[in-house]
């Protein structure tokens, strides 16, 4: 994994911790399924996507947004867009 991707993952984790106020750093895992997060509902999903789009200056396709099932999915998507 290159330095840029490391930075993306670090930033992504920070945005997760900011969006999910009660999420503790040691409870965050890129492989943790969306359904295991305490409060990852439709509204939080859209808030998260919007935060990520504005932070990374990218935009997600609708099909990408609805298929996000874990933080890893987001990391891969962002890496792909930033490395393109």
């Amino acid at each position, binding site marked *: 994994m290159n330095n840029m991707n490391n930075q993306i993952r670090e930033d992504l984790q920070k945005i997760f911790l900011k969006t999910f106020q009660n999420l503790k750093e040691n409870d965050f895992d890129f492989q943790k399924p*969306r359904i295991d997060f*305490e409060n990852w509902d439709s509204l939080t999903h859209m808030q998260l996507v919007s935060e990520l789009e504005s932070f990374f200056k990218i935009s997600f396709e609708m099909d990408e947004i609805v298929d996000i099932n874990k933080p890893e999915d987001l990391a891969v998507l962002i890496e792909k867009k930033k490395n393109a």
Partner: protein
Amino acid sequence: MPNNYSFKIIPDFLNNSVRNFPDKIGLVFEEREYSYKKIKEKANSIASYIVKKTKKGDIVALFLENRPEIIFSYFGILSAGRIVLLIPANISDDNFLFQIKKTNPKLIISQKKFEQKLKRTGILKEYFYTDIDEIPQSSFFAGEDVSGNDVSTIIFTSGTMAEPKGVVLRHCNVISATKNITEFLKWSKYDIDVNILSLSHSFGLGNIHCVLAAGATVILFRDAINIKKIIQTIIEKKATTFAAVPAILRFVVDNYFEEFKKCGEFLRFVQTDTSLMDKELIEKVLSALPNTDFNYYYGLTEASRSTFFSINKHLDKINSIGKALFNVEIKVVDEYGKDLPAGKAGEICIKGGHVIKEYWRCPEASKNIKDGWLKTGDVGFIDKDGYLYFKSRKDDVINVSGEKVSPEEIEEVVRKMPGVKDVAAVGAKDRLLGEAVKLFIVPDASDFDVQSVVQECKKKLESYKVPKLIEVIEKIPRTENGKVRRNILK
């Protein structure tokens, strides 16, 4: 629907369908299918456990996400003659603690992913908690004597006060509402419903009542995130009925219009609520589904769905929120409680068997229910043809995609923050949500960090209550009595 509609208590919905269609699939969730007999067995297991742990009339809190177990538990608790306190999965810590302390449940049924929340709020220390996935299977449940007048469910809702109010539903209220809704929507055993709504809210739960009472099938979704899969499911399973809040319908028609059009081959109706829905959205839904009824209702947790109408059949009444259902009386009154004639705007009042009698230990709020009439706090008028029109909220409650938000609740959180001199919250028009929260702040100093307000609200409030817009101003306009003049801020 049975001809005589002989249901007396909520569990009768399930019991009747178990008798008539024991092997029919009543519930589908993530490729798992449950026959009516299986749903009943699961509910009985929970009832058997509840009977051992609590007494008749005790409150049992149900804090689960959308999953089959919320249905099993709900029917199990009610069959055992206990009261269900329905707690939405997206509740804030403060509100959760408030509802638990206010109702003092003898048992909390929840799931592993919420254990941190139970610990964090101190609830785990003080209350008896059971993980739904650890309730032992048991086929024996002797039954309990439950009457139609018994309290069945408590659901908290925001209102004029900063504190949420507990809506006290009795079995008979729910039976009456289910009858009214089923008569209008003509739900039958042939229907397949796709449910993406939260079952901790009146809209989603009400649909479960109707579907199970009719002996139909419900395909339950955990949430509405994967809308593409939801649309595919409607097509693949040939679903006949679908309900969504306007924000989701907006998302669907803006992003999956062509796919949604294909659903029209199967969908008998789509239903939605009265969150602000603009004409463009209505027209888009109608053009996607020209042969499907687009049913729009007006209601509130205290009075379920009180009006309905099929917009596609009454395009001349497109701005209306429908006509009173059979067995429902609606009137509009002035500030002295006097009935107003057609066309005159005043407070909307509702009466009927589906209307609650009181709020949970809240005599002040219960004063809004008198002689069976519920004062809704909504302002509107009725036209000469009996159609109801919504104009505004009397009490400034903000309607965020169907979720009622009290401005005072948000203001209370922000006012406690250091550096905040004054604050006011109002509803601002939002294309996706209907309304979103807009906050006006008067800070003590010019270097006040507005983002800290968002962070504080995220900590203390549900996500839909977090302000989407914040404006710093010099002074909050108030009346001589100190009341915020929200109409100026809007």
